[in-house]
């Protein structure tokens, strides 16, 4: 993985010192709260309902075991012994004190981490496929480009006061596991006719109160020109994005109002006027970063592991976990493992400091010391020898980390909601918990098959409800929480925004309503049909009818 050099180290240390000064000036009154706000936000510090919340960047979701242990230490020393992994592959601490935050940032810098630009109207932490570099279906590893983007976007002098936040996602695989089409910019790796790597650049996707699927800005930008092309795009947005209305300030609105043709024309004109050699990082720099992502030295392993086969045949719980939580790996005899942070009835994405340390130990013992955070709020061990899977599973099971539910109905995405967040209009966590409990039976979950439930506690859609097969949006009216159900969303290749099914439901009605949707699907599905496929075949009204059928 990428390691800081002296430049990165100095850069991050200077940033910590700068923030320490800003905190002191805020406490002395030299900075007003209005002026401090964007500065603290650009260091990931929010003011929430009960306390400050610190969001730490995990660039493209990649962590070493050493870094994971430091995250556990921070949770113990400055928080309440746990952290929350988010849909943007970050970790959030819910209870830090303002005066401690510079020390926390210092502790992060000690392990080559930071909280730069995890919030604020700037380019946010770049997200990617949690299986980047190991997936069997990959064209090329997108992480070197993601790391280049992390560096390029860090404290960008021109793009730190944008009209609104800006999110970039990147995938190296045709099977999009990074939700690129619902980002401000989505980058999908492609090759040109001569086999040169580059990117399809998509723009103007996003969720929030106006969900949109991104449009293609350019079908091929050579890798070497990507930074310049993004600068051109960002400049058009910075100059012309709306600043009169916070709710219309994202790039998707600009693209929508100008039309993709006119937006493209402006970007191409800006790009044509740029001095490419002056702006683009040197090929030697690309090569340096690429070298940091050289794959680990995989052992030559046999295709079949007798140890695995024996465990699979004799321990049904292990077999279920192996069926559900593994991903094919490009190297023979290895697997990608999803460690679910969605125990039945648990809080999606939460991990205790003890669990973090066990994950770090597991990565050291079985997976080259590497971990990933998936946007589904789970942890991935990307490179585990199949032979070691039974031992890994036992270790995880002892810590309550063996839930076999990746992609199933209880693998629920949920934002923190009104239990923590000052923007929320309703609670998300208890809804997730009650759905999870209702569908706890694994046999039934497996019978239902892939089904993504995503819950947001407000219109900002941090819980990605727009792209849930079943989305749940928490709202509030006259002091009463209620929940709107959307159907048919997906962030993948054939990305679609879910359609609102109608009047909202009370919290206690939600699990039953979902049960009716699931029953309808199970009754109507054809052989091998997933929920989403059946929904698309039968249409919205059929499921809407089921949703509101008298219980």
């Amino acid at each position: 993985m990428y390691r800081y050099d002296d430049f990165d180290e100095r850069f991050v240390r200077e940033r910590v010192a700068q923030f320490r000064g800003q905190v002191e000036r805020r406490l002395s009154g030299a900075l007003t709260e209005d002026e401090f706000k964007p500065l603290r936000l650009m260091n990931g510090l929010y003011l929430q309902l009960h306390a400050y919340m610190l969001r730490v960047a995990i660039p493209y979701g990649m962590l070493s075991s050493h870094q994971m242990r430091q995250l556990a230490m921070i949770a113990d020393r400055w928080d309440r012994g746990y952290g929350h992994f988010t849909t943007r592959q970050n970790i959030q601490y819910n209870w830090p004190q303002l005066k401690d935050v510079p020390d926390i940032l210092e502790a992060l810098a000690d392990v080559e981490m930071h909280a730069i630009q995890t919030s604020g109207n700037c380019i946010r932490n770049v997200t990617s496929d949690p299986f980047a570099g190991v997936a069997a279906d990959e064209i090329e590893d997108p992480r070197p480009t993601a790391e280049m983007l992390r560096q390029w976007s860090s404290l960008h002098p021109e793009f730190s006061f944008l009209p609104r936040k800006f999110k970039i996602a990147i995938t190296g695989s045709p099977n999009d596991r990074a939700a690129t089409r619902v980002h401000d910019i989505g980058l999908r790796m492609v090759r040109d006719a001569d086999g040169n790597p580059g990117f399809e650049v998509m723009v103007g996707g996003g969720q929030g109160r106006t969900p949109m699927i991104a449009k293609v800005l350019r079908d091929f930008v050579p890798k070497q020109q990507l930074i310049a092309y993004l600068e051109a795009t960002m400049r058009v947005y910075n100059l012309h994005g709306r600043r009169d209305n916070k709710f219309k300030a994202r790039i998707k609105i600009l693209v929508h109002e100008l039309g993709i043709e006119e937006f493209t024309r402006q970007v191409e004109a800006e790009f044509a006027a740029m001095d490419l050699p002056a702006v683009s990082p040197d090929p030697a720099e690309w090569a340096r970063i690429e070298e940091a992502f050289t794959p680990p030295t995989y052992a030559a392993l046999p295709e079949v592991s007798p140890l695995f086969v024996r465990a699979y045949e004799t321990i049904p719980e292990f077999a279920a976990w192996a069926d559900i939580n593994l991903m094919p790996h490009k190297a023979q005899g290895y697997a990608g493992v999803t460690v679910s942070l969605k125990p039945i009835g648990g809080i999606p994405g939460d991990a205790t400091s003890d669990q973090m340390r066990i994950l770090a130990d597991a990565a050291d013992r079985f997976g080259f010391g590497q971990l990933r955070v998936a946007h589904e709020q789970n942890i991935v061990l990307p490179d585990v020898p199949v032979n070691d899977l039974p031992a890994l599973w036992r270790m995880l099971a002892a810590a309550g980390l063996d839930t076999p539910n990746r992609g199933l109905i209880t693998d629920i995405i949920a934002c923190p909601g009104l239990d923590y967040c000052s923007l929320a209009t309703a609670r998300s966590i208890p809804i997730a918990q009650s759905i999870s409990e209702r569908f706890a039976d694994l046999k039934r979950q497996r019978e239902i098959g892939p089904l993504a439930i995503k819950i947001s506690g407000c219109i900002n859609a941090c819980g990605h409800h727009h792209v849930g097969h079943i989305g749940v949006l928490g709202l509030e009216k006259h002091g009463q929480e209620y929940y709107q159900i959307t159907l048919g969303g997906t962030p993948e290749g054939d990305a679609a925004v879910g359609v609102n099914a109608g009047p909202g439901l009370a919290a206690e009605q939600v699990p039953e309503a979902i049960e009716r949707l699931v029953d309808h699907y199970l009754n109507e599905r054809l052989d091998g049909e997933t929920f989403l496929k059946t929904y698309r075949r039968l249409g919205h009204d059929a499921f809407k009818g089921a949703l509101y059928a008298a219980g």
Partner: protein
Amino acid sequence: MPLVDDRGFHGDRWRHIADDEALPETGDVIVSQGRIAEALARPCGRVGTELGPDGDPEALVPHFGDLALIAVTFRSFADGRGFSLARRLRALGFTGELRAAGHVICDQYPYLRACGFDHAEISTDLAKRQPEAYWLQAAKSITLGYQRGMARSTSIFDGRHPAERRLTA
């Protein structure tokens, strides 16, 4: 209004002349774009103009030879259009003084410089809350940046490859 640059606070030798105000015979003046010709016709004194956040840098290109200063205005420090306008003005070939005028705060000073500004003109109120020492401190708070093609001595991307740079330079 106080000016601030790399060396600290200064008095302003430039005067902003409102559109309904008579032009002084001499002295350096900042006028609206419509009055550039009138200001140039004076016997002496340099001429600058303002570019608002909605302004079009291309429209100023014909005047680049005559203008000693362009003041890019910031309505709020959170409105970052001025950063892009400065980069455009520099890319279009403006070599005179570039001023950031309005609400900018000391934490933005390194960004302003990197985007091509020479100095900032701030309000007396802000200068009281954020005195000279803060600006001097902010100017050297972040000494490194990754991005290339900015108006600063070097980028980290270049610093890592001094040999290659020399070969291609």
